[in-house]
């Protein structure tokens, strides 16, 4: 595997509220888009709790004034971060970003390149593959509440990953992407644009991490996944920000006919972490699986908003979100299954389960349905409960201390979701992260 370190220079640093920078070497059309997006950002009102899309959310945490755009990284920064960027043992390609600057790119194999796979940083793809890029870049409107933050992202995004998998190409090993926040009060705008053509197959895992376990920071990311006809796309996000990070992530997944998309979001870190996931099923036979696991502790707040949008008839979607809540943590789940007119024969499920481990934890669930077609099968469920005393008692009679027994039960509760991925190597990695989280 080849390794190449990008070395473009970043000259500007300063508050994110000063707007898009002109110093970067982007094409004119992209600059225009950024300026327009910035205007949109400035014109849209800040969310309030009265907005249905922000109900229950602690919107006071969304003050952007303290956060800055990073200046150039030192050689020390690069080598240190590189050392800690350990994820999966085997991967087909890898990019590592620190404060939105690419420090390492392990390119895909010559064979895959020859077959037309494109794995490039955003700024290169927008030049070398501008048609494809312009067709899909930020093409889905952020409708789940964060239009303002999507505009902020578009205005300030400076790098990211572009991955194109052509027709019939299957990439066996996962593609790995790291996004690191380094130094206090830094902000990043991670971007992933994944486009798959007919019958292609790919798995991508994104790791979100902080170098310093308590450093405040701000992350506002977008990932757009396009599953072409018959394609199979798996996306995994392993979010483990520092405890003072405010993070927003906006996902949109478009599933064409006979394609299937599966996403799993593991949320462990951050002070406030919001995740919006929009899955659009636009072709018959399409299927989307939305999975998420959150371990919420201390004062953490996880805010998940989802939309399973069935546009075409004969489509299926299945959502399973599980939260384990301890201390004073809060979780919010606002999900909607929408069956558009004429999207008959829809099969849609949605389930959110909250496991409360302390008396101060709070779980909010808003599972929703909007059905505008008939011949559909839609169900949703939401449960909130605590550890079963009998299960705990059973484990203790086997000599397992209460603390350990609790952890076992919680891990077991969360495992169901991770198993659904059916990818042992990734599952093992996620397990390790959850385990580390519990032993903090």
């Amino acid at each position, binding site marked *: 595997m080849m390794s190449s370190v990008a070395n473009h220079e970043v000259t500007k640093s300063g508050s994110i509220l000063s707007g898009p920078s002109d110093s970067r070497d982007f094409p004119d059309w992209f600059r225009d888009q950024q300026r327009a997006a910035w205007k949109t950002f400035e014109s849209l009102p800040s969310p309030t709790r009265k907005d249905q899309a922000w109900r229950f959310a602690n919107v006071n945490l969304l003050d952007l004034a303290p956060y800055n755009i990073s200046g150039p990284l030192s050689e020390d920064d690069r080598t240190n971060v590189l050392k800690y960027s350990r994820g999966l043992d085997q991967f087909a390609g890898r990019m590592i970003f620190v404060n939105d600057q690419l420090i390492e790119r392990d390119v895909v194999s010559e064979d895959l390149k020859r077959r037309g796979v494109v794995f490039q940083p955003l700024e290169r793809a927008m030049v070398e593959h501008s048609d494809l890029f312009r067709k899909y870049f930020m093409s889905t409107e952020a409708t789940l509440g964060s239009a303002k933050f999507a505009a902020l992202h578009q205005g300030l995004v400076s790098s990211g990953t572009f991955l194109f998998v052509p027709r019939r190409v299957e990439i066996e090993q996962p593609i790995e992407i790291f996004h690191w926040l380094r130094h206090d009060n830094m902000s990043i705008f991670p971007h992933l644009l994944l486009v798959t053509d007919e019958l292609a197959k790919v798995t991508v895992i994104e790791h979100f991490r902080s170098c310093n376990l308590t450093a405040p920071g701000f992350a506002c990311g977008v990932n757009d996944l396009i599953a072409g006809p018959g394609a199979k796309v798996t996306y995994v996000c392993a979010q483990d920000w520092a405890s003072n990070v405010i993070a927003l992530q906006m996902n949109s997944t478009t599933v064409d006919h006979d394609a299937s998309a599966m996403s799993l979001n593991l949320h462990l870190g951050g002070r406030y972490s919001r995740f919006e996931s929009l899955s659009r099923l636009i072709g018959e036979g399409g299927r989307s699986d939305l999975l998420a696991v959150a371990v919420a502790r201390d004062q953490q707040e996880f805010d998940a908003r989802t939309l399973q949008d069935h546009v075409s008839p004969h489509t299926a979607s299945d959502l399973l979100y599980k939260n384990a809540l301890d201390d004073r943590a809060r979780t919010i789940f606002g999900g909607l299954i929408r069956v558009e007119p004429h999207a008959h024969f829809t099969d849609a499920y949605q389930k959110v389960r909250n496991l409360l481990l302390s008396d101060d934890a709070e779980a909010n669930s808003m599972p929703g349905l909007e*059905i505008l077609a*008939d011949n559909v*099968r839609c169900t949703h469920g939401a449960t*909130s409960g605590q550890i079963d005393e009998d299960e705990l008692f059973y484990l203790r009679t086997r000599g397992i201390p209460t603390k350990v027994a609790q952890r076992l039960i919680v891990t077991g509760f969360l495992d169901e979701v991770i198993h659904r991925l059916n990818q042992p190597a990734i599952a093992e990695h996620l397990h390790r992260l959850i385990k580390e989280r519990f032993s903090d």
Partner: protein
Amino acid sequence: MKTDTTAIDIDRGKGDFFYPEAHVRDAGVGLSERTIHYIADVKEDPDWVREFRLRGLKTFLEKPLPTHWASKDLEAIDFDKIRYYLAPGTEPKRSWEEVPDDIKRTFERLGIPEQERKFLAGVEAQFDSEAVYSNIKKAVGEQGVIFVGSREGLKNYPEIFRKWFGKVIPVADNKFSALNSAVFSGGSFIYVPPGVKVKHPLQAYFRINAENFGQFERTLIIADEGSEVTYMEGCTAPKFNTPTLHSAVVELIALKGAKIQYITVQNWASNVFNLVTKRGLAQENAEVKWIDCNIGSRLTMKYPSVIMKGRKARGEVLSIALANDGQHQDTGAKMIHSADETTSNIISKSISIGKGRATYRGLVHVPKHLKNCKNNTECDALLINATSRTDTYPAITVRGTGNAVQHEASVSQVSAEQIFYMQQRGLTEAQAMSLSVNGFVNDLVRQFPMEYSVELKRLIELEMEGSVG
């Protein structure tokens, strides 16, 4: 053993008529402080009620329409074109003989059978905004039960009335409860003394009979310790071409160990905006149960709630909604747990026919440090046609360990095999469909008092007519 029961003949077409109005008192069109003073003068309200009304008006004018979450159709209400108060100028009547003939004819057309009147404990019939007729069966009166119009309650029982009035639903609860607080008239006041179990359901019929006229009744029911009462409310209205507004407030108070069951069959004409606030307070070991059927109206927004304030209190909402062409039934339930070991249950079934839209909106709240609270929510929706629509928007907040909350919802349609099977047995497609729909709601309807379940099944059949083929 077999008992003969004649089906109660309710035909929606029969509600489609009206008699000439002869209103003596009329506050004119539109809403201002002048309207409020007029109503307060006519009704000879004590000062505190006048203050209450003015506070209501102020809040109503300040609050925006809740269109950020609710239907934009609310904007179709022209508050300046509504008459907020008019009464036939008659005092509530004591006996049936004293009731004016044309009003009697109205009830006749509504199909309230003679024997039912005898059977029922008391009939509180509201014609426009004043209670025209109220009669409490002797037995109930002897038990010390107070069952009067809200105005009479305010006048004759001020010490009980004032203690609870506006306590469960404050003026500023929402825009429409504020409107009701400003212009309320009519409705029932019921007090059941400690330990008294009212055997027969108390019943009231409401009816709108003035174009552009909103009805703002206010009902307050207090069940003292260990007592039990069932209240039934049913509505039909003649059809008018311009929108009519109905915005009631109903407050229930179940003191220690008491049980209140409140049953509504709502069948307003399809141009009525029915925006109702209903809430019950359950003290220790008490139970508040709402049975709510919504069949009529253009837009109904109604989410009966129970605040479980005492240990082991119980709240229940059983809800059936039927949305046909041009209708939006936006109904649901709210369960606020605020004591240990409280339990609540919500079962909601909705049927969308043609272009009808049924929405379930729910709220379940379990604050922290409560133990052994349980909530169960089930929402099932049935879609009849390809153009039908259904939505579910629950919001569930649970804090702390020691509580169990579950919510489940499903959407389905009548299975083609079922219909095919029944057609094989000689039923027409429409009959088969009707039978299926009745089967869908049957386990809920069975919990209704007999006469209501019969009426309801008939209404569902009528609504299903012409929905297939």
